[in-house]
């Protein structure tokens, strides 16, 4: 079961070997570190629990406040 904020449908997952051989262009500068958190094309799992302010609700609050002329703190 995916946890909150995890990617549930990844565009691709680089293997350790792929990460190891990644290069920028034709230079010999090796990329270090692990691939970044999100990739283009990912699908995220955001199941907000009851009582939490979900992204859906927050967007609604923002638009509702905007209509009333209210700006964030």
């Amino acid at each position, binding site marked *: *079961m*995916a946890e*909150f*904020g995890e990617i*549930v*449908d990844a*565009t691709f997952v680089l293997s350790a070997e792929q990460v190891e051989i*990644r290069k*920028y*262009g034709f230079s010999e500068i090796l*990329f*270090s*570190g*692990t*691939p*970044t*958190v*999100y*990739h*283009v*094309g*990912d*699908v*995220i*799992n*955001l*199941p*907000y*629990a009851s*009582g*939490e*302010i*979900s*992204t*859906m*609700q*927050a*967007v*609604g*609050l*923002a*638009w*509702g*406040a*905007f*209509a*009333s*002329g*209210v*700006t*964030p*703190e």
Partner: protein
Amino acid sequence: MAKKSGSSFGTFDRSPIPEVNKILPIRTEFSKGSVPNSLYSVDQESAWSRWRRGFELYCKATINQEYSYPFDYLIPLPPGTVIPPGSNPPKIPGVFQGFPTANKELGMHWAGVRLAGSLRFDNIRDKDGDPSPILSVTEDDDYWYVQISGDWSATNPLPAPLFIPPVGPIPKQYPINGEILEDRVVSVGGAVINSQTIDPTTQKRYGYVQAVLISTNETTGVLKLQKQGSVESTPDGVLRTPATRPPNVGRYLITGARYCCSCQDFNRRDFAYMTTLGQNNKKLFPRTRAATAKPGRHEIMSLRGVVDNSAMTDATVNRNMQVVSPSPQYNVPPTVTPNTSTDARSLRDNPGVYRDFGNVYLRNRPSPSIPGAVADGMPTYDDYSTVTNPDGSHTITSLTDYWTPLLDEVRYCKHIYAMKFAEKIFPPEPSDIPIDAEGIVEWEQDLVAKVNKDNEKAVYDLTVRGLSTMDVPPYNCQAPMMMPMMQKLFNVPSTFVLMSGFRMFDKNGTEYNPSTGGSPAS
């Protein structure tokens, strides 16, 4: 052809023949884009060219995740709204993807994606606090009408952000209209399914449907989804378009990926380049074609009440963007809010739907097996019917054209096409392939070679010049060319796009907060 003099009625010149490989930003206004004309086989405004170039960019730019800046945007809340301690903050996850370009002084176009799954309908509750799955679906030839569960009425309308009630001069708003919706949540709080997720009760894949939300009826709770351009993930794990069945009853909807780009092709804006001032006879200042101009409509970036158009700002600064429009008729349809010059709250740039970017047209026949649907693909020209005469000749009895709007609500630039390729949902091929059949292979090879050559030069130039800290997101997110894009991408009012909301991730996946001086690991 030499120039010929005309009569006293005027001088008639031969129309310029477009250069095959010179693809320019789309400028056509009244034809709505890229229908190949009858005079020339080359149309440099072709969406197909963007689609094809997008695939090359996908192969070069996105596959290695270079210039990729993942982020979480923490949505600021109105005063008085408190996030319960220990709970997850409302956030919009996404990625900025840089595309090196040879045609821009900064050396980079920035495209952004808001990840699919950001907004989930299982977080919507009716007045009794019950979740609202899909209750039923009806359909006609062109649309599905999805009934959301709940006792909706004029006094108990659909909740925000599906519907924002009118307040004073601000009329009804439907910010989610134009979003892509997918029925990928099976139970409240459940994980989003994908094409391969198997239903444990049937041991078959769930499958799902993706379609664009056209309109929302707040009093009945009916969402109108468009069949055309819909995508279905079948029980075989195959993606097909258009979908052959409606969204599943009992499921919860999520929003699909949302894209935006800072390039002039997507924004339909011209940029002026300081480094070429005086070097050639190109125009020195951005100007807008008369047909595009919305008289009096403009944006104002201000910092503490003072106009501020600087490209880069500190990560602790929040500028204000006001979209000024003299009257509602100058808004770009379909309009969510008619801004007026007298309303200081007109801070949005048509976020529900992107600026009119032209539709893509498909020359194809309706599919007899799916009423109302037209299959995507290469154009067919079986647009007439004949009868055979006794002597063996044929007589045309009817002529019919099958130009129909295709697929997405907007036409994308090549950068967004590249990101759609990365989404694994192979973006359907636009039907306006811009050349005669006999020249297509050579033309395409030339196009690919040119894209690769341009891209290599752009990357080289960028390497020589280098990106400064302030040239990358989120530091440049308040630049005049970026701020409208940010608001469109997040689909929240621009006053709710604050620098303090950005949480970036470095190459090691470690989060940092630029507004408090955070920086990526070296």
